[in-house]
């Protein structure tokens, strides 16, 4: 592609009026070997656009999501009920011991 043509396309590109085909001509030119000195600033731009497009989402898309917050809540509620159970057992025992001691005193 002649330089004059590229220059025209660059102006269109800056104005946001190039078509996708014209943009691919520019991309090929600016990621190629010989770029005119006065257009050097477009090399990093088009290099970047091409590079960043290679990044991919390489995790599996999960369609059944167990929300971690719900899991935590479940765990918390189980833990809380265990604590409650233990304390009530503990206090009952204490009371029982207290009653027994009282009874012993009365004897």
């Amino acid at each position, binding site marked *: 592609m002649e330089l004059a043509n590229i220059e025209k396309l660059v102006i269109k*590109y*800056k*104005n*946001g*009026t190039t078509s*996708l085909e014209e*943009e*691919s001509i520019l991309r090929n030119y600016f990621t190629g070997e010989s770029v005119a000195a006065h257009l*050097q*600033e*477009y*090399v*990093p*731009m088009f*290099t*970047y*656009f091409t*590079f*960043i*497009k*290679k*990044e*991919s*989402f*390489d*995790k599996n*898309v*999960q*369609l059944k*999501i167990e929300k971690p917050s719900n899991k935590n809540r479940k765990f918390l509620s189980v833990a809380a009920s265990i604590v409650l159970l233990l304390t009530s057992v503990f206090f009952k025992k204490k009371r029982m011991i207290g009653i027994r001691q009282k009874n012993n005193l009365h004897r």
Partner: protein
Amino acid sequence: MNESDFLKVISPFKDKVFRLAKRLLVSIEEAEDATQEVFFKLWKNKEKISDYKNIEAFAMTMTKNFCYDRLKSKQAGNLTLVHTNYKGKETPLEKSIEYKDAVNIVHSLIEQLPEMQKIIIQLRDVEQYEFEEICDMVSMKPIAVRVALSRARKTVRNALTKQQNYGVS
């Protein structure tokens, strides 16, 4: 539509969703979460999918909206986004230092653009969507899209020219 059909439908554009999310949310982890969330929502609404004219455009719009909401709640929580160099899973190790510099410089220049310009330059110059598709995704008129794109391109280009002229990196 069963699970494997759905996964087949989304496979051509799941990377695009991820890249748009990363463009807006910066961090890889956040972008992965956003991608996951968008596809999960889409899957839950799968009965309506045949109605959508263009499921890809719909997914991109969802991604944009989801990321906007995330950004808003971040700002509310006084968390600021840290602008950093490009962080990818694959660093261009095999490439020259100039190549890496070019990628980093352009990346940080785009990060400084207003949100809408970021989205539009991503959709056009990276993902190569047609203008009509972009108008659909961002619900803007064609002229407004072209103006935003033109501003974004000029800003990046002018900054690069300055850097080259003064030899500042």
